[in-house]
Structure formats: structure tokens, C-alpha cells
């Protein structure tokens, strides 16, 4: 008779012990499996958040006295501020060479006149001179532009403005219809020079303007004209053409600091002219409760595993003491110590397999509740903060389409995550469980295995 057969006899005949052990192992494995599943769900959610929010940093033209290229020019009704050193394509390329940067969104805003275009009126009255003007946007690549990436507007016809495009523009479908324009037609932009641009794409707004929004006609998103950098160069040939703001997106937000450090050390960029700032705030805020949850889960797992190992060792040691007689008999009839220890191990293993199987169902039932219970405790503060800051955003008079408002509203919140126990976690449980069982059986068996057969037999009588 081999040790597996003996183990099976023991487990089936000593039913009270088997059931007790089953219950203990079931509780332990349910805890471990729940912990593993929550940990995994939380990691997945964090991963999703990272993908959704990304980590971003911005390079801005510095409008401070420290910038030697910074210029102010008085005009009729005020002053114009500009920098002789905008963010050129060369600067952008140099930054893009730093590993870990996924894409960039380069923009400049410019208020200029457009010939023969009837703009959609706003609800704030303006002087006549401004009626033929629009707040345009120069883009490096319109596809990466935050208006498009945030979903605020969507390209519904034609194509985006890309890196090498020249003399092209994207306008809103509504503006096009109002002026009988379509893709292929040209617009004439007026600045120092007048430049013709060809319409290559039409966009549509996701939702209509709020009636409450106070906005001038030139600030209306529907009147916005996107065009390329070459066009800007031609509009003001005396100045170096470049962007005001470039937002770079890191592939992994966690890498943001490293990337920025490298960018700051790029020798071919004159940092006196630019400022560098990070924006992974949104991610950090959204991920904070999840990170706390992860910490909790790790603690819970460690505590469960340690407590399990201790309880199991104690119980098995207690039972092993009652089995000294049996062990002596087995040794006396010539059964080896390895075979006896193997039997003890298989006994627990047989029950553990059952318990682990059951725990798949029990933890599936409890995991979601436990997880969201833990998470709620953690998010309460954060969510409150978010709500109040959201309120501020709503009441503040933010010009329409200032970008970011919508993006913030779309921020995924980690208020609840869905936890489901999968096979991967079950396999992990098996590894952890078997390690705990080997340890506990080893500890409990050691007491017996150190005895000599003769001593065991003399202890019997």
C-alpha cells in the first residue's frame, strides 16, 4: 500500500478532522484568492487609467523677464507680447527623441481676420472690427490636438492636418454650411500677409454650446480654424514660426519624471526661452485610492498567508502528536519516513484541492463586496475633493473650449472596480497554498521525524 492510498484512507475515515481542515483551508484560500483578485483588478484599473489619462508634460514659451527673447510692442490699444524664440519644429524633434514619449500636441493661438466669411455670432456684443475675426489655432498635428483627443470635437469629413502639410485648414461643418464652403475650397487668412489655405477637413462638436455660456463670436469653437505652421510662417514672414505650447504625452505616466529630467538636460535647447511643467496630476489623483487599495491588499495577503501558516502548523502539530503511535507502527513495519511525511502531505493536499476549488466560488461572491468596501473607505476623501473642485470648475467663467474642462469631466474615477476571480489567480493561490502546506506539514512532521522508531514504540506503551 503506497502513501497516497494511506492518505486517502485517512482523509475518508477521519471525517471530522477532514471537514474541520476543509473549513479552515476554505476560509484561508477564500481570503487569499479574494486578495489576489482584488490586487489584479486594481492593477488592471490602474493600467486602464494610465492608458486613458496618460502622463503629460508641457513646454511653454516663457513670458517672463528672464527670457531674453521676450518682447513687448505697444500697439493702438495696448501691447503685444511675443517671444522671438517660439517652440520650433527642431525643438520638438529634439524632445521627441527622448525615449518614452508617445506623441505631442503643438499649438499656438492667433486672432486673425478671414476674408469673406460670415462667422456664427456669439452672445456677447463685439466691435465691428472683430466680427470678421476668429481665434485660430496653429497645430503641428490636429489628430493629437486636445480638442480632438478629448472628444470635444470630431473630424467628420476629410483628413487631419499632419506634419508636412502646408496651406491647409480644418473648420466646423456648421461654419462651412453657413458659407457654402466644402472640402477643397480655399479661405484667405489676413495678418502681415494674406495667405490662401485649402479646407481639407470638417469637424463637428460633440454637444452644442451651453445656452448659459457667455462667449464672443471669435471665441466660439464653431468658428475656430485650425491650420498649419507653414501658413503661419507666411502670414508673418519676419518672425520665426513656432508654437507657444507643446504638450508631450509619455507612454507610461510612471516614467514622466525620468523623461522630464532627460528633456531638461537636452543641450541643444535654450531653456531660458521656455518653461517645462508636468501634468500627471489627473492620473495621480485618480490612481491614489487604487494605490492605497493595492497596499491594503498586499498587507492583507501577507497577514493571511502568515496567519494561515501559523494556524495550520499548530493544528497539524497538535494532530501529529496524536499520531505518534500510528507513526511508530508505520516505521516498525518498515515504512520509510519519507513515505510517512508524504502521506501527511497528501492528506492535506487532497483536502486543499477541494478547498481551493470551493474558494473559487466563495471568493467570487465576496470579492466584489470586499473590494468596493475597501475602496469606498479610501475614496471618500478623494472623491469629496474632486466633487468640490468640479463645482469650482462649473461656476468659474471659463471661456468655451478652453480645453481641459471636458477632459476633467471625463476623468475615470476609481469609485468602484469590477473584481472577478480568474484562473490565473486560482493558479497563484495553488502556488501560495502549496508553499504554506509544505511548510506547515514540514513543521508538524519534524517533531515526529526526529524520534527514533524505538523511542516512538516505547512512547506507545
Amino acid at each position, binding site marked *: 500500500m503506497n502513501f497516497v492510498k494511506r492518505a486517502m484512507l485517512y482523509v475518508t475515515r477521519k471525517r471530522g478532522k477532514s471537514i474541520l481542515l476543509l473549513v479552515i483551508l476554505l476560509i484561508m484560500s477564500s481570503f487569499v484568492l479574494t486578495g489576489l483578485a482584488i490586487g489584479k483588478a486594481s492593477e488592471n484599473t490602474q493600467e486602464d487609467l494610465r492608458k486613458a489619462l496618460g502622463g503629460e508634460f508641457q513646454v511653454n514659451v516663457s513670458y517672463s523677464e528672464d527670457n531674453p527673447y521676450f518682447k513687448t510692442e505697444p500697439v493702438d490699444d495696448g501691447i503685444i507680447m511675443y517671444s522671438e524664440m517660439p517652440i520650433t519644429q527642431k525643438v520638438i524633434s529634439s524632445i521627441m527623441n527622448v525615449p518614452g514619449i508617445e506623441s505631442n500636441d503643438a499649438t499656438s493661438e492667433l486672432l486673425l481676420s478671414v476674408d469673406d466669411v460670415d462667422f456664427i455670432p456669439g452672445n456677447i456684443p463685439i466691435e465691428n472690427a472683430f466680427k470678421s475675426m476668429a481665434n485660430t489655432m496653429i497645430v503641428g498635428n490636429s489628430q493629437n490636438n486636445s480638442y480632438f483627443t478629448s472628444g470635444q470635437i470630431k473630424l467628420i469629413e476629410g483628413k487631419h492636418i499632419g506634419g508636412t502639410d502646408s496651406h491647409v485648414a480644418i473648420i466646423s461643418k456648421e461654419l462651412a454650411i453657413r458659407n457654402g464652403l466644402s472640402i477643397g475650397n480655399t479661405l484667405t487668412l489676413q495678418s502681415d500677409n494674406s495667405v490662401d489655405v485649402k479646407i481639407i477637413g470638417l469637424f463637428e462638436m460633440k454637444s452644442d454650446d451651453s445656452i448659459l455660456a457667455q462667449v464672443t463670436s471669435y471665441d466660439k469653437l464653431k468658428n475656430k480654424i485650425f491650420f498649419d505652421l507653414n501658413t503661419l510662417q507666411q502670414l508673418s514672414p519676419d518672425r520665426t514660426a513656432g508654437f507657444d505650447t507643446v504638450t508631450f504625452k509619455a507612454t507610461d505616466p510612471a516614467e514622466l519624471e525620468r523623461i522630464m529630467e532627460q528633456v531638461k538636460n537636452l543641450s541643444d535647447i535654450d531653456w531660458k526661452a521656455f518653461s517645462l511643467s508636468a501634468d500627471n496630476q489627473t492620473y495621480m489623483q485618480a490612481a491614489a485610492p487604487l494605490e492605497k487599495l493595492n497596499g491594503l491588499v498586499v498587507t492583507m495577503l501577507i497577514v493571511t498567508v502568515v496567519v494561515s501558516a501559523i494556524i495550520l502548523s499548530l493544528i497539524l502539530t497538535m494532530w501529529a502528536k496524536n499520531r505518534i503511535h500510528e507513526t511508530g*507502527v508505520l516505521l*516498525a513495519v518498515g515504512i520509510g519516513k519519507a513515505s510517512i511525511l508524504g502521506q501527511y502531505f497528501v492528506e492535506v493536499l487532497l483536502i486543499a484541492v477541494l478547498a481551493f476549488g470551493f474558494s473559487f466560488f466563495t471568493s467570487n461572491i465576496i470579492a466584489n463586496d470586499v473590494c468596493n468596501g475597501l475602496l469606498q473607505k479610501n475614496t471618500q476623501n478623494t472623491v469629496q475633493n474632486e466633487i468640490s473642485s468640479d463645482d469650482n470648475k462649473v461656476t468659474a467663467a471659463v471661456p468655451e473650449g478652453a480645453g481641459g474642462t471636458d477632459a476633467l469631466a471625463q476623468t475615470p474615477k476609481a469609485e468602484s472596480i469590477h473584481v472577478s476571480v480568474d484562473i490565473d489567480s486560482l493558479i497563484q493561490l495553488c502556488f501560495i497554498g502549496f508553499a504554506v502546506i509544505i511548510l506547515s506539514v514540514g513543521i508538524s512532521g519534524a517533531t515526529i521525524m526526529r524520534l527514533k522508531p524505538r523511542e516512538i514504540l516505547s512512547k506507545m506503551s
Partner: protein
Amino acid sequence: MAILEMKGVSYTYDKKTKILSDVTAELEIGKLYAILGPSGSGKTTLLSLLGGLDVPTRGEVLFDGEDIGKRGLAYHRRNHVALIFQNYNLIDYMTPVENTKLTARQDAAPILERLGLTTAEIKRNILKLSGGQQQRVAIARALASDAAIILADEPTGNLDEDTAAEITTLLKESAHQLQKCVVVVTHSNNVARQADVILKLKHKNIQITEQT
């Protein structure tokens, strides 16, 4: 030809108390040996040395001319000897058949039935059998293991006279008919009378008497 030999065997507990001193004896196949002696004289000690449950402080125990330590005591216990105890020492979560199968190299049921257990009894919970029946199971386990040597420590000590006589007969038959070397530690004169050879423990040594 001796199957089991003791050559100058001494045994000392805790390096102080000497129990056996320079014991030499030869045990043969087909004979029933009785070890006699007062309590505490070292009978169980002697038996455990023969059974490979313990090692002599001095001297050697040989099986078939070879020191039993050479292949390891566990090997000796598994292959050469079978032990029978006063308190039966059966595994309580196994039926008689399963207890017999523990180290069996033969079919268990026929042996048990030959020793007088019924078909129903051999599948019963071991604790629901009488002492005599349990000792029969222990003998069956010894026989089924195919070991050439059976070592029994006061096997009839817990049994009534009639049952004891039956068990003694079974042990004697094992020696004579099944060609085993059977060594029985006993206080009983009835058992001693049936033995072929008597080993009497006296002054830490043995006195060998062949009976006819």
C-alpha cells in the same frame, strides 16, 4: 544455518545503564524461540535490536551473515522482519484487510480467513474486533509481509488463556509450517513450553536452552 545472529552485542542506555552485555546467539528458520526474563531485564531491548528498531552500543546483528546496518535499518525492517506487539499496534483507520495490506506481498484476505476471521470481520472497523481478533490481524500482517523473521513482544499479554493458546499455536505453526524464524518475548509458561529454544535473560546475558 542461522538466519539471524547476534555477535557480542552490548546495549547501554544513556551511556550509563548497561542492559545487555556481550550477547551472542544464532536464530534459525523453522524454529520458535521464547525469550524469558523478569520485567526490566532487557527483553524488549533485545527484540528491538533484532528488529532493527535500535542499534547495539557494541557488537553486531547479522541477517544472513550480513550486518543489518549495512543496507540500513529501515531496509531490514521492511524486508526481513515483522513485528507483533502486546497492544496489537494496528492502524485504527484501516480495516483488517487494509492493515494486512500495509506491507503485504501476498493477498490479504485468504491469510486473514486462514487465521480464523470471517469475511465480514475482515472489512470491519478494527476497533470493533476483540483483542484476539486484533492480534490475529497483526499476525496476518506479519505473515503477508513475507518476512522470514517474526518478532513478537508479549503477544498474548492482553489475552485470556484460551485465546492466548490459539495465538501461540498460530505462531508455532508459522515457524514450523511456514518456515519462519519466530521469536516471542513472554511471561507465560504455556508459551515457553511450546518453544523449540528458550533464551533466558540473566545478568545482562542470555542462557540458551534447546527443548525437545
